[in-house]
């Protein structure tokens, strides 16, 4: 399912003295199956943009295409439910949305709202609880008895249980310990690959964007200022700096190595493995050349 924003502007509190534009003429196309990262400084409009992906916010100007559906500014949008089933959003601190008596019921809440039978919903819950790395017996506990990290995983399972085709993640690992962060990000990446999902990751973390994304869009003061592959984006430190963003650790590390070796590597490396290989290759060339 392709998602396309055309000239989208959005103003909060439209028509009151508090009116404030958060998005200006944003154009962004996310083809089916892409892992798209959206990065930007605080207040750049990242969180506003993501609420357009399933019709929670309607554009003040412009159009949003979600698969076959088009949401046009100024027109009433009816029957948004099918869209919301197809586009799952994991909000920032999703643990705040837990409310049921048991974890099982909470995970089943989403799918059952979309007309999935009780048996199927329970089936999904049992599969997903393992997928998010929690033991089975947690299903019968109250979500409010869990630790913060466990609550986060339950909430994520609750969104995945809707079986969405597109999954939108808003800082999904904020406030988790480093190991939890990696586990969750890896889980989303595996899901993305195995199920052929479209994944949209809104994040502060240049590292995550570099590591997982196929494409990156940079938001700055409500505008989408730059799009490209991670390699294109992170090869231009000057432009990034203009938008108050930094290079990922690994790219900064690479430039230090290049300084030491006093020659540039042939490409920008986005993971540790890639960099190690590239350095080894460069050293080998040097040795063979002599």
């Amino acid at each position, binding site marked *: 399912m392709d998602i396309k924003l055309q000239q989208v502007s959005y103003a909060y509190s439209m028509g009151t003295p508090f009116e404030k534009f958060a998005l200006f003429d944003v154009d962004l196309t996310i083809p089916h199956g892409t892992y798209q990262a959206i990065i930007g400084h605080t207040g750049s409009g990242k969180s506003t943009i993501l*609420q357009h992906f399933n019709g929670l916010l309607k554009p003040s100007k412009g159009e949003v295409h979600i698969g076959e559906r088009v949401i046009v500014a100024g027109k009433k949008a009816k029957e948004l439910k099918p869209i919301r089933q197809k586009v799952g959003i994991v909000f920032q601190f999703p643990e705040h949305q837990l409310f049921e008596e048991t974890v099982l019921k909470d995970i089943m809440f989403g799918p059952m709202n979309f007309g999935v039978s009780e048996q199927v919903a329970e089936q999904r819950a049992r599969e997903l609880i393992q997928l998010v790395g929690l033991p089975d017996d947690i299903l019968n506990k109250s979500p409010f008895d869990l630790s913060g990290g466990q609550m986060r995983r339950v909430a994520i399972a609750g969104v995945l249980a809707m079986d969405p085709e597109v999954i939108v993640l808003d800082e999904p690992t904020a406030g988790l310990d480093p190991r939890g962060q990696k586990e969750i990000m890896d889980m989303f990446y595996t899901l993305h690959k195995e199920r052929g999902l479209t994944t949209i990751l809104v994040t502060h973390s240049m590292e995550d964007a570099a590591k997982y994304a196929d494409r990156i869009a940079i938001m700055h003061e409500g505008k989408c200022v730059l799009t490209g592959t991670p390699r294109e984006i992170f090869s231009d430190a000057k432009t990034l700096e203009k938008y108050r963003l930094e290079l990922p650790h690994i790219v900064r590390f690479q430039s230090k190595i290049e300084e030491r070796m006093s020659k540039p590597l042939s490409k920008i490396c986005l993971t540790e493995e890639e960099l190690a290989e590239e350095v080894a290759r460069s050293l080998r060339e040097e040795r063979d050349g002599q």
Partner: protein
Amino acid sequence: MMDKMIFGRYIPGDSFVHLLDPRSKLIFVFAFIVVVFLANNAITYGLLLAFTLLVILTSRIRLYFLINGLKPIMILLVFTFLIHILFTREGDVVLDLGFLKVYEEGLRQGIFISIRFLVLVFMTSILTLTTSPISITDGIEVLLNPLKKVKLPVHELALMMSIALRFIPTLMDETDKIMKAQMARGSDLSAGSLKERLKAVVPLLVPLFVSAFKRAEDLATAMEVRGYRGGEGRTRYRQLKWDWRDTLSLVVLAAMTALLVFYRN
């Protein structure tokens, strides 16, 4: 959804009304609420309406915005108006639709009550729109100070009020966020039967209560850590200042009251 609701909101500005001392504004509004009941004929109600309009003008808040923001309350207004039209049976018949007779007195009463209601709502809204919640509580605390003599915990009451006011926007934001999260999970607050809608409120209320209690606990801890001990011997950062504007506004209100007394039947 809650974008348009202006009840309890504050719009910063530098109009005459904004610059008034919260104490004079509070006295003004409370006195006005009493004074409104002096009106009992067309002239006096007309005066009230004109006076309110004058206050709105001096506050430089757009009338359109004010009316738009108070729409939810307008339903109440229409309701009271209809009740009067339908159930008062005095005077001549103005309109006869066969099944329904509208009497002169009913129409009169309906209009008067509506004006009274409108004027009260506008005036109190102007108070909250032009005064920051903090100044309002400061004003109330000072005005209630004499009641300390009868062992009323004035400072604690004022603190409770300012905390409550402070957290209205926070809770509104929180509600909005949770509502969106549940909507993204297919919960629908605006469709279905009454029973279904009531059921859809549970996923909203439970997380809201949980977070409100958590916030309260955090706040209590933070206050204790910083050695909060209540009002005893506490000095103020924001000093209240009474100047000519405050005296003037109360004088104007007194003049208005005199006019009302003079023209009422």
